[in-house]
């Protein structure tokens, strides 16, 4: 499980002194509704709805990539590709991995957020 913290640098580089903490804002936005995207993906898998899976995977991939959640991004990419090709069955074994990667990334982000709020 990899979260590349170096990716945060491109975000923190935009930070202006005395202004709202940018990374904290992005992390908050991520944590606010990313779980919903994961849920939508699973629901789509259960219902055999390739479009739903594709859209959820794409959205989760984009925001995860920005925050350096590399493993999660890779998994989302796989879901996106397979769903586009209509091969949902092939994607089924990846569902647990996705949950694990998401939990790991979320924990990682939440820890950073707490650290920043405490500071």
């Amino acid at each position, binding site marked *: 499980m990899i979260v590349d913290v170096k*990716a945060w640098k*491109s*975000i923190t*580089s*935009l930070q*202006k002194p005395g202004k709202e903490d*940018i990374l904290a*804002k*992005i992390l908050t*936005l*991520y944590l606010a*509704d990313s779980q919903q995207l994961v849920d939508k993906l699973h629901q789509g898998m259960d219902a055999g709805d390739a479009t739903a899976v594709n*859209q959820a995977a*794409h*959205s989760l*991939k*984009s*925001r995860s*990539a*920005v925050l350096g959640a590399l493993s999660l991004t890779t998994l989302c*990419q796989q879901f*996106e*590709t397979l769903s586009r090709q209509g091969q949902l069955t092939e994607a089924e074994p990846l569902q647990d991995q996705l949950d694990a990667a998401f939990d790991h990334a979320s924990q990682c982000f939440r820890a950073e957020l707490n650290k920043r709020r405490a500071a």
Partner: protein
Amino acid sequence: MTSPAQPLLPLALIVDDDPALRALSRMSLEQEDLRVEEASSGQAAIDFVAVTMPDIIILDLQMPGMDGFVACQQLRQLPRGEFVPILIMTGLDDIDSIAQAYEVGATDFIVKPCPGLILSQRVRYMLRASEMLNALRSSESRLAQAQRIAQLGGWEWDLVKDRMHVSDAACRILGIAPALCDHSQASYLARVHEEDRALVAEAMREAVASGTEFDLDHRIVQNDGTERIVHVLGETIMDDTGQAECMVGTVQDVTDMRATEAKIYFLANYDSVTHLPNRSLFLHRIAQAMTCGAGSHVIGALLVVGLDRYHRLRDMHGSRKAEQLIKDVVERLQHTLSAGVTHVQSTGAEIPVLARLSDDQFAILYTHPSAPDSAKVAHTLMSALGTPFVIDGTSVTLSAHIGLAIPGADGADADVLLRNAVTALQSAKTTGQNSYRYYSSAMITSLAARISLEQDLRAATAENQFVLHYQPQVDILSEKVVGFEALIRWQHPTRGLISPAEFIPVAEEEDLIIQMSEWVITSVAQQQRMWHKGGLAPTAVSINLSGLHFRQRHIAGHIKTLVYEQGGILRILNWNSRRAC
């Protein structure tokens, strides 16, 4: 005082369904001093842009509902949406869709996730490019506007590929629909008037061959058959090796300009009533003829025809009738001159130049060696004018005089020759109606004497140098004086008494006679009153009046007034009409 408004910061619209990514992009762009607005879907973006056109749009491709492709296509359809820069954001795995994005009108793309600094720098670059394009477009539109007003268009002929690019403005001037222009030199030449085509093609060919420029007017024929005149200019451009590479030029519709120039030329050189050459052009023609004939034998003649009493006819009948009379005169002159040519056509004579020098003077120049005998021409012209003309339904007889001068002998240049012919005319006028005279140097002397008499007479009228002599009229039977005849005499300050025989014709010619006669009437009336006061019985006094007097309206009433004003006695005032001479 109000401070000047701050220039508005450029406005960027971020279109993305993911709030986290929108926030990130916003922060990145706000770093670059941009104003940022967000839209969470393609439809929201279109709704926003329909009201406010941003300076740049950052558009995510994959969104639920309307995707980026459809949004991009629709944004381009909006008013002014054609030129706004649209930056597409897409994942690395979406490379295939990049081509599709360009097809629907994307300006550029950027791969996400994209570090904030890269996005902001890309946006900054695109804004600068867009600003330059906008400036270029507005400059182009100003140029097009100016060209449209000047009816000017540009063209460029690639000599290597033999392709001719004709600008839309030039197409319009040539009457080609810009879309139908096949951009070849042939399509240009096809528009050129058939008779000018070879000339234009040759001018272009020669300019290319010599690496120079060309500059000419030619006619074009538009689709609907309309003929226009264009001024075309071309310059040959050489490559590094000195080979002609291309030719650039302009084409301008000068139809109206040329028409105006032609009108100005006509007004400056022709008489507007008769359309004959005026004095200025005639002098030029004489000079030309004399230059051509220099060294060889210029046998010809210059005739100046002067109509008598034209101004009086004009005053009586009005300008319009007088103009018609002049046109009739010209018709007769032309008919006579061309008849003379038919007669000698076998000798190759040209029709002589006929010009109108002034209201009542015409001039004819014969330059050809085989010109007919000028005295014969003068005779024929005068007899042609001798047949009565018709004004207002009444017949009018015109008399004329002609002065002649011979090129070379009577003047070495146009001015002198014409002046001498006019002198001959004035001399002819002193020798009775319908006469002609050749110029001789002696005329200058007699003309000078006549001019000085004229001037003295004017002064005499103003300074009252006239005296009246009263000649008694005696009844032979009763041997009583029954009246007097008032006779005018001129007491010239240096020449003494001058006979009326000398000055009355001049006074009539110069329109001084009426004024003179009125002085006579007034003076006689005053004299009568003095005699009456002195106790003399009322006496009849006869006075002589010019025939010209009786052409005036209300002559009787006018004379009555003059007499009564001075206390004269009308019933015993006789008048005799003097023959006008």
